[in-house]
């Protein structure tokens, strides 16, 4: 495999959590490689460690053991500041429950990652550009009429599309989706998957976690996670 084509690599990733007096081993040595432009689905039963793996790949959590490399750079060796930057610029997250901020409207929710990465002064200098980018995304996601709406005024599908817009705002190289259709009906979920397919066709690398084989089938490649390990 051409090394330059690998965007994400995990090797021997282990993670355990303490639950009361016992320690639960969630990941037991996960090895994984994702190439640029791939649409990968990680499938597994509830509690198999899918979300934990996704969080580790996105730099939201650190593994107990093992290596996670993004474009050849080891996430474990990154300091807090570098990891924040990684989450802000390189990765976009889409969550099952959308997790939009209730106090912000759709446009502000989408712009949030750009606001986070700029100081007050630099934000005022480039806010028009950010608004243009967000409006463009809203158009692509069919939310042009919902710009000023608050999350509670949107349907589930619209909320998830807004969340996808937020994830794509800073043009990340990797999109991580944690059960993106898990909270939606099949028609709406289908629509979201179509959005992912479109994005992937445009060159976006996507790693999606799901427990549903039919949804996983929409990805180019499926990886099965079982008992904290990738099934060969």
């Amino acid at each position: 495999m051409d090394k330059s084509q690998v965007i994400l690599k995990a090797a021997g990733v282990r993670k355990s959590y303490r639950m009361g007096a016992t320690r639960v081993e969630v990941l037991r040595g996960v090895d994984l490689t994702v190439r640029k432009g791939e649409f990968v689905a990680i499938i597994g039963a509830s509690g198999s460690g899918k979300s934990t793996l996704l969080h580790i790949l996105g730099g939201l959590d650190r593994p107990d053991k093992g290596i996670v490399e993004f474009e050849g750079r080891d996430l474990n060796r990154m300091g807090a500041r570098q990891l924040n930057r990684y989450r802000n610029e390189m990765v976009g997250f889409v969550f099952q429950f959308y997790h939009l901020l209730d106090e912000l409207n759709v446009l502000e929710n989408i712009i949030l990652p750009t606001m986070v990465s700029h100081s007050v002064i630099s934000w005022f200098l480039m806010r028009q550009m950010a608004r243009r980018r967000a409006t463009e995304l809203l158009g692509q996601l069919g939310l042009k009429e919902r710009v000023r709406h608050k999350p509670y005024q949107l349907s589930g599908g619209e909320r998830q599309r807004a969340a996808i817009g937020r994830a794509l705002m800073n043009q990340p190289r990797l999109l991580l989706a944690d059960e993106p259709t898990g909270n939606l009906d099949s028609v709406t979920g289908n629509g979201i998957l179509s959005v992912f397919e479109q994005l992937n066709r445009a060159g976006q690398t996507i790693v999606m976690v799901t427990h549903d084989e039919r949804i996983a089938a929409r990805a180019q490649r499926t990886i099965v996670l079982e008992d904290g390990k990738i099934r060969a």
Partner: protein
Amino acid sequence: MYKLTLIIRYLLRRRITHFAVLAVALCVFIVVVVMTIMTGLVEDFKQKNHQFVGDCVVGTDSLVGFPYYEEFMETLRGTDFVQAVSPVVKSYGLLSVRGDSMRRGVEIMGIDPVLHGETTSFAKTLHYRANQPDRAFEPIYDPNALGCVLGIDLALLRNTQGQYAYDAQPPQVAITLTCFPLTARGAPAKVGAGLVESQHFYYSDHAHSGIAHVDGSQVYIPLEQAQKLCMAGTLKRVNAIQIKFRSGVSLSQGRARVAQLWQEFKRAKADAQDSFLLDAVLVQDWKEYRRAYIAPMEKEQVLLSLMFILVGVTTVFIVFVVFYMIVSHKRKDVGVLKSVGTSNVSIMALFAGFAFVIGCLGSGIGVVAAWLFLSRINWIEGLLFERFGFQLWDRSIYAIGDIPNHVEFHVLAIIIGCAILSCLVGALFPAFSAARLRPVETLHTGPV
């Protein structure tokens, strides 16, 4: 930038933050109002005492007094830092009004009215002879009669609103003052039936110093009469020399120079007759001289300040609870912010900034409300009295005209600073715990 946006939105949309702002405003309001009134009362009381005494006093608590005061007064007059000096005889006596069976004990104060007027606010406290201290002891109805000036509460009664019923001219009232003259050794000057000395005076004016115990017990009479009534011996004596410094002379500097002069004077008089009386003389500035009256009020002020620390602690606790609740409700937001690259420090700054804004807003509202309340406090009190008969300070008892309502800007600044600091302290732990939240824990759950 997102911090500012979120702070504004949280503030506008989370009702619980309104309660936090209200709590801070209420605390600031209470502290500003009470501190203003208390500080006003204390400052007013101090100022009146300062004006009553002058800047410095060379005196003794002994009723016997000390001699050679005229020579020391000349020494003081010869310096470049003393503006005026006034010799004072202080003693106690019995006052009786002719035609009235009532007798009451009074404090007798023998003064030279002109010198005393130059040194203290005595001239301004007079009513019929206001700013004419040279005529203070000349009754208007008979300028040749020997007059005395009574403390206003000895002469007049106040109504419930604190107003005195003045006559166009002082009523012709004959007063008898009876006293025990003391020798230089402190013994009664006479024995047997003629133990006491009495003198008749006519009520010529009253003095309104604004100090309750002075206005209620002081009788001013001419210095020579007081010496005759209260002191016996070959050498003229006084109990105190009250001194006013020239402007620009600091209290401590002036007092130190007077003390030095007094030590030199005392040494020079070491072999003079009755020089032992000079040993009991102290040089004190007005604050030291009146400390028995001022210290309790200052102590009350300190106690009040301590109580306000409790108010501050309450504010901290309220803000803590509010922020703890906000952070609990906003765990998901913290997770989302971290997922888009927000640092722990930024999360802390977000909540600290939020606390700062709550502190500023609460303080602002509290200060404006307090200022509005204080600017109308006397009107409100008047209204309460008219409508319901309620009076915060009974003017027939307390020597205050109006409730003090002068807001000191430096006090306001301190209160606002403390309120904001309290908010920051209250928000510290919740902000810290928000910053330490693991996004994995907060994002893995559904909408709450």
